[in-house]
């Protein structure tokens, strides 16, 4: 299946883009997507400090992904 990664904050800078399509096996989880993203050396060290969301829901690493999901990569926040 295909999902779309949405990079936020510094991760967009590191990824060189705000979006990236990812191809995953049918039963893939958030953790599988992270594992695939880790092959990008620029992102690898930042990913463990990130949170993840699908749409407007924060999701845990064991969350199962579905075709067409938008998975947000949320680096440490600095609002206020």
């Amino acid at each position, binding site marked *: 299946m295909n999902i779309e990664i949405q990079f936020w*904050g510094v991760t967009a800078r590191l990824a060189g883009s705000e979006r990236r399509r990812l191809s995953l096996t049918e039963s893939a989880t958030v953790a599988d997507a992270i594992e695939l993203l880790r092959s990008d050396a620029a992102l690898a060290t930042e990913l463990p400090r990130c*949170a993840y969301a699908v749409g*407007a829901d924060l999701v845990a690493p064991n969350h199962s992904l579905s075709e067409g999901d938008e998975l947000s990569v949320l680096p*440490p926040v600095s609002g206020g």
Partner: protein
Amino acid sequence: MRAEPIDYSRIQPEPLALEPLLLATERPDCGALAIFAGAVRNHHEGAAVSHLIYTAHAALCDKIIAAVEQETREQFQVPECRIVHRVGQLGIGDIAIYAVVRAPHRAEAFAALRYAVDSTKHRAPIWKEEFYPDGSSSFVTGCCIADGFEPPEHLKQLPLKANT
């Protein structure tokens, strides 16, 4: 006190206004009003700052800030708590965040306000990019949402505008 919850956007690209938050939260049973405003400083960790750009995952922010407002009201027994955050480019002195709490008495208003602001800063998906006088920039190192992250049920279940 009001007929129905007033809808408002917690993430705004326009300059923030305090007055609508005060009007929307007026209550004759509340003697204490505590307000926090976060403004853009001209310095950060010793370096001069010329301006900032805030970006936010608006839909998730709205949900998380609504949850923070609700937690604040419930944990501190305060009837009113509202938080708004600005996004886009902000100059020195511009307001990035307003948090407003109303309570019968001041002790809980102070405690609730502190909780509301701290929680928003730690949990809302908002990112600050600082720009320096030489034109360079960097993202401010912030708080890991993921630290010990276990998404609480109410964060998933809250309706987007759960601010009654």
